[in-house]
């Protein structure tokens, strides 16, 4: 989308929910009957210190999860259930999460222009469209760019079970690229010198390495070589970190591990909580399998069983530990899925309307932002574009949305590409 069309859309975005604050907690905004006001000025006070970002890879069906349409054909066999917030209902596939609705703000009016996985995933993570000529940074790198690390010896940006071409640091400092953890139960592998190698040998090895690398780095002063050096520096700092055990979820009790679910995603959420406890600012955990072109209902139900248990455990655990107040939990995906049920009980990609969720980190729980039409096909109210959603996360962290950063070729960029944060979602 060009900046022009984006501005145009935000301008067109109507107005008016002063009522929201007055109506108090639980009344969904669409019940007030008018569009919410989008204030232009953005006061800057962080309500969150860190983010746990749960990415549903493949395109999560909104209709079968957070935006149910019970009783009509598009719903298929899925019914809706009540939640801990009266007036808000979610899919029957999310019975545990339903009981945590008082912590959550549902965003039911997300909309993207990108209907293919690679493009949609990239847009959601970076707020910019995928182009051949530039790599944009993802949110975790932006956070480290503006706020630095929360814990000086741990990485500021960790991605658990992410894809092989996850957008990294883009034109920002390569050191802000995420640390990838493949299998959360393995933690950070190889973070100790191998058995039988003494400290003195380790030091000798490093001294030899430095002398080997010195000339090469001088002869080849390119970003790639520089970033490799920086990866080694970070790896060595990590190996010495007093907080290295944060990566080891086996230190949790069996009860806690079971509560999160014995799945890579569940264990990833647990690892995310441990890292947040040690002030890692951005942790993303991915859950794949949402590309339900066939067997949509079986597969969404299976995936929801994983998501429901793990997300609920995460929210209650963070709450119990007093971390939910300043940890923003985000649930999102690249696009929704079609109201039409196609051959083999499938749903196709549906970028026009989909849902996300925000909880903790200063978000006022028990509310719904925006809505879709009766079939879940288009946004009927308070459309949220991808940059707006990301601006909301950045706003919670108190990051400067208007600060311009230039790429190596001199092109100007901002965090969230001029998206407008949904400041009404936050506690007053």
């Amino acid at each position, binding site marked *: 989308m060009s900046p022009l069309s984006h501005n145009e859309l935000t301008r067109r975005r109507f107005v008016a929910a002063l009522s929201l604050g007055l109506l108090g907690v639980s009344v969904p905004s669409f019940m007030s009957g008018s569009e919410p006001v989008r204030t232009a000025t953005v006061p800057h006070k962080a309500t969150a210190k860190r983010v746990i970002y749960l990415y549903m890879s493949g395109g999560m069906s909104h209709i079968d999860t957070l935006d149910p349409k019970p009783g009509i054909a598009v719903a298929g066999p899925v019914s809706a259930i009540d939640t801990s917030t009266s007036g808000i209902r979610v899919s029957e596939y999310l019975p545990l999460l339903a009981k945590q609705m008082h912590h959550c703000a549902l965003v039911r009016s997300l909309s993207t222009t990108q209907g*293919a996985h690679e493009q949609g995933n990239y847009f959601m993570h970076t707020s910019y469209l995928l182009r051949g000529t530039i790599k944009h940074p993802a949110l975790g790198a932006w956070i480290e760019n503006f706020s630095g690390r929360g814990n000086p010896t741990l990485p500021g940006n960790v991605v658990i079970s992410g894809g*092989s071409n996850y957008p990294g640091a883009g034109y920002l400092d390569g050191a802000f690229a995420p640390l990838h953890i493949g299998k959360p139960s393995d933690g950070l592998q190889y973070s100790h010198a191998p058995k039988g190698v003494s400290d003195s040998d380790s030091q000798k090895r490093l001294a*030899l390495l430095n002398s080997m690398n010195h000339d090469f780095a001088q002869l080849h002063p390119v970003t790639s070589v520089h970033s*490799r050096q920086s*990866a080694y520096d970070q*790896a060595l700092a990590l190996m010495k970190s007093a907080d290295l055990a944060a990566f080891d979820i086996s230190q949790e009790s069996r009860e806690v591990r079971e509560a999160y679910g014995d799945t890579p995603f569940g264990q990833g959420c647990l690892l995310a909580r441990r890292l947040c406890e040690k002030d890692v600012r951005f942790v993303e955990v991915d859950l794949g399998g949402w590309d339900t072109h066939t067997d949509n209902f079986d597969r969404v139900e299976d995936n929801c069983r994983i998501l429901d248990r793990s997300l609920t455990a995460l929210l209650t655990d963070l709450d119990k530990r007093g971390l939910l107040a300043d940890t923003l939990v985000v649930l999102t995906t690249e696009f929704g899925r079609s109201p*039409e049920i196609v051959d083999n009980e499938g749903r196709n990609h549906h970028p026009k309307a989909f849902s996300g969720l925000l909880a903790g980190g200063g978000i006022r729980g028990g509310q719904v932002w925006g809505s879709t039409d009766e079939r879940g096909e288009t946004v009927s109210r308070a459309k949220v574009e991808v940059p707006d959603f990301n601006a909301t996360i950045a706003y919670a962290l108190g990051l400067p949305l208007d600060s311009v950063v230039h790429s190596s070729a001199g092109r100007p960029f901002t965090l969230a590409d001029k998206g407008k944060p949904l400041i009404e979602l936050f506690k007053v």
Partner: protein
Amino acid sequence: MHQSWMILLLCWVSCLCAEDSTPYDVVAAATSLDRLIDSSLSQRHINNNPTASADVLLRRTFLCTIGRIPTLSEQNYWRAIPEAVRHVRLVKELTNSEGWIHHQYNWLADLLRVESQMMKKYRGDTYIAWLKKSIRDNTPWDILVRELLTADGRLLERGHEAVGYYLRDAGMPLDNMSNTIQAFLGTRLTCAQCHDHPFDTWTRAEYLRMAAYTNSAEVGPEKSYQNQMRSMVKKQGDGEMPKAEKQAARKLIETLTGGVRSSTKDTIKIPADYQYTDLKPGDILHAQTILGDPSPVSAGDNPRLVYAQWMTNDANPRFAQVIANRLWKRIFGVGLVEPLDNFTEDTKASHPELMTAITTLMKTVHYDLKKFQQVLLLTKTFSRASSNWENNGTNDYAFPGPVLRRMSAEQVWDSLITLIIPDPDHRRLADAEPLYAWYESMRSKTPAELIDTIHELGKGIDERNKLQQDIKKLEPDRDANKRDIAALRKQIKQIRDRLQNGGHEAPPGESSNNRMEPWSAYRPQLVRSSELPQPAPMGHVLRDFGQSDRLLIDNSSDINSVPQALIIMNGIIDQDILRPNSALMSAIGTTRTPDERLSCIFMAVLSRLPNDQERQRLRSIAATESGLKNIVWSLLNSHEFMYQN
């Protein structure tokens, strides 16, 4: 000197082309490309890079053709051959060796998103074996692509394995179409899947017309077979099938009949969410291409054949150009058009004449990818020192030589195992034969026999589920119940083996070659990347170094990262390379003096001798066992090892 060189070259060229009906002069073709590069450099007032050293050229040629560093004995062999003739012979031998198949396969697997397990349903073994065979046979690119696009039949039936290309995207015909156009025509249609393309000219309707060629092919298990089985079960009349049997039957039919059935239909219906006014939802569109010849389908024709012929025809404006540009980048590090798969009408190559020349070359060699790459490898440009060049989105590369780049994940792993096992190119792990054999045994069963199998499998599944429940009950007190849990696990494994043999799951293949000499003493997984599961599991060196997850086209990454540093510093070196029986340590064992050891280590890891300074610094360190290991460690962690210079 110059003349004798030329004569030798000509001799070689005639050998190279001896088996061809129309001899083709690869050296002359390389020279004419050099001429174009030279003239464009002089227009830009840029000098060529100096010629690369013999060491650098040898290592680079190995990495570019067979995807790994040379072994010590390979280096000894090649260094004994006079430099004047070495490179041409090297290119010929390596491009005809086993290593070539591994390296080409890795490239193709990233492009085609090859998976060992497709859609969590279909085993990729036979498709992978077929792709490797196509590389071994050097099937021309246009023919290979036609075979993929027109594939039909069952995945496990010999001669039909190419259906893996469609099963990879089973249930997603529209995505499969976009992927096809992106992979082979370098054109991104994905946007037009849902709406008119914002930056290119494609409309959603054009996209749908394109999709109409493949939309009617039936991809997945055979519906007719499913129905037959269903009515068989009904006839037996014992009411509803138990859940476990249903599961077994579904899985069995998927494995047995998974594949593609052609259709002569070439139509697609406008979907309900169509947002433009030119057409209405429910309207019927006929197949039509997006570029060049519109290629309508005549009644009775196979639409996928028409589509494949249009795609691979010399007249297609992008087919030859896109593959030529992809391979150019593979050899030199930068494409003449970047990115490789975002061609539009406005696309301009950095060197338009050169782009035209290599596109013509691709057609002239009749899409023989080996010959095409031989030409590029024999250019003077390939033999020059590399440049420190980076793409910042606005700068073109002038091609005074190849570009310095980090090794790919596969090159890293394959080079590491070169230091561990002997003869790495011939050790196998993957084997599709058991799967073919399983298929042959199952397909000959009558439906009644299959029903019996399903009953049996259902019982097995029930039994397995029950045992799993039993384990769950014992889990809370894991330590006290250790023995019982182990016994139950063993029983489950027995059932699983039985299910595999009986047909619920096809048996896994592991080549018997894996445990033969000279490899019996090494872990089975110490094989080249292409023999491992596709993609390798998370946490493997390959994944840490950016091997593609195979979800998207060309999804591998060469970004440096912390886990890479950790796994090289603290993992594989001490685990495998410094063990006494590794290829490297065995070679070091045959040396007598610290100087010989140093030479051996430097040659094995960096394909060069240490310089005087390095010798001086390291000689005394190499005298002790631990010092020697520390030197090996530092060389393997060095930038120099990790970059293809």
